[in-house]
């Protein structure tokens, strides 16, 4: 099952200029449970997906909202020449095709 088919919201945004944060929100507890146990959403898998060191990735279960938070240290500080997305609101693409 692909993440894009089970998640209600898949979004990214800066959490300050040095961190990209991603929210995956699910319709119900069953979908959330299915996703949170998937190795495709482990720290290592996310690090490979975004081409960063695993030490720069954090994954937080947030069951109260049937959600998963991912945070990644940005490769380029927001707004520095060469940055591609100052607000970080369009960095969710690599997550869409994840197979859970």
């Amino acid at each position, binding site marked *: 099952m692909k993440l894009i088919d089970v998640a209600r919201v898949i979004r990214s*945004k*800066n*959490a*300050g*200029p*040095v*961190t990209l*944060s991603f*929210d995956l*929100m699910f319709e119900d507890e069953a979908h959330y449970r299915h996703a949170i146990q998937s190795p495709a959403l482990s720290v290592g898998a996310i690090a*490979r*997906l*975004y*081409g960063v060191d695993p030490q*720069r990735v*954090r994954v*937080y279960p*947030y069951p*109260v*909202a*049937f*959600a998963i*938070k991912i*945070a990644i*240290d*940005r*490769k380029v*500080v*927001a*707004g*520095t*020449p*060469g*940055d*591609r*997305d*100052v*607000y970080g609101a*369009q*960095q969710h*693409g*690599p997550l869409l095709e994840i197979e859970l």
Partner: protein
Amino acid sequence: MKHVERLKSDLIAGGKRAPMRILSASGQIGYGLPLDSLAQGFARKPHLVGADMGSVDPGPAYLGTGTMGPSLTGAKADLGRVLEGSRALDIPMIVGSAGTGGAKPQLDSTAAMIRELAREKGLHFRLATIAADMPKSMVSDAVRRGRVRPIGGMTPLTEADVASADVIVGQMGSEAFQRALAAGADVIIAGRACDTAIYAALPGMLGYPMGPTMHMAKIVECASLCCVPGGRDAMLGTLEDEGFVLESMNPERRATPMSVAAHSLYEQDNPYEVFEPDGVLRVNDANYVAVDARRTRVSGATWTPARQHTVKIEGATRLGERCVLLCATADPRVIEGLDTIVPAVDRNVRSMLPPEAVDYTVHVRRYGIDGVIDWPTPPTVMPREVFLLLEFVAPTMAMAKTACTMTKQYLLHHGFPGRLSTSGNLAFPFTPPEVEAGTAFRFSIYHIMDVAALAPLFPVTVEDL
């Protein structure tokens, strides 16, 4: 102190705290306020109205140049509407992170708007402004003493970084606003500030418990974003003895337990913790219960006061002047060859320029391939068209434009094996395609600084209008 004393006698009796209504007019004042919901909010007779005006989100240019994100017309119109509403009810109005960056030029221009509005509308009140600029000598001293540490992937701060920064501000917390309120301010315009402090300072003085107070502040500072559907309408938070109730002032927006709980994720690294200058908010044990279809009651967040006061400091450093080239291609051989064509053109241009003119950087965005995301792998199928944005930064605009113009010409006519379109590789949407894009900055400082005392860093200035 007049608002604090009056609210104490109005709201606090026999150790019990009556509901305190706190109106968030906007999470980004200056971009237009939905007027019906703002009017609805004031009709509920709030005890405090607040609005956030700034952020680091729009990048370092605003902090660096001292200019505002919103237009001056938009900012003044929004401030005027909140000012009129607050004065009609004689309640405190608090604006944080004035003029986007919250540095002196932005604080000054925002305060000037308030003075103009007071004159134009015939209003009289006590205005407090709170500066947030951090003297370089003080930050350098903290660096030397090992009292500054980086956030996330920032490198450790050096004295050279501090010396080369154009602007440095610190985020003030509730403490600074409380001094302004104690000085009897009716209207507070603050430089760079924690968005929570706008809403938490006054209830903190009245004795409302800090866990729920800070939790409510963290949610309402984004106005109605915590609702389904989320939006920019004014949001009412009602602090109770042990929790708070949230309600959007737009009847179409519902604050549900799920939507409110989910808001803790928004723009946060860790959804369970929020660090403030004077403590940490933890929402691990928060409860979210529906009051009705549009309102949610929240309780259970905890607040741990900090043993060591800290200030988040933000600095912008000028890197040079920016000129950008806007062009595109629909040729499959050019698109396939971009990996080699662009570097070859860059080498060629640099070899032709006089040595003193090659001191520039160029960044290429290839929209359709990897303009938005730094994908680990290229697309399996190349797109039919690709938009190219080349960003040149050099010490002067003349140098940036020279590099941009030469690159344009050589990219247009670059020859390569298998080239089909020998009359030109690029389409220009208009000419000239070189666009002067102002001064380029970077966030050179985004660090945490330990401080002995918060008050001296954020001076309050009071004036009666």
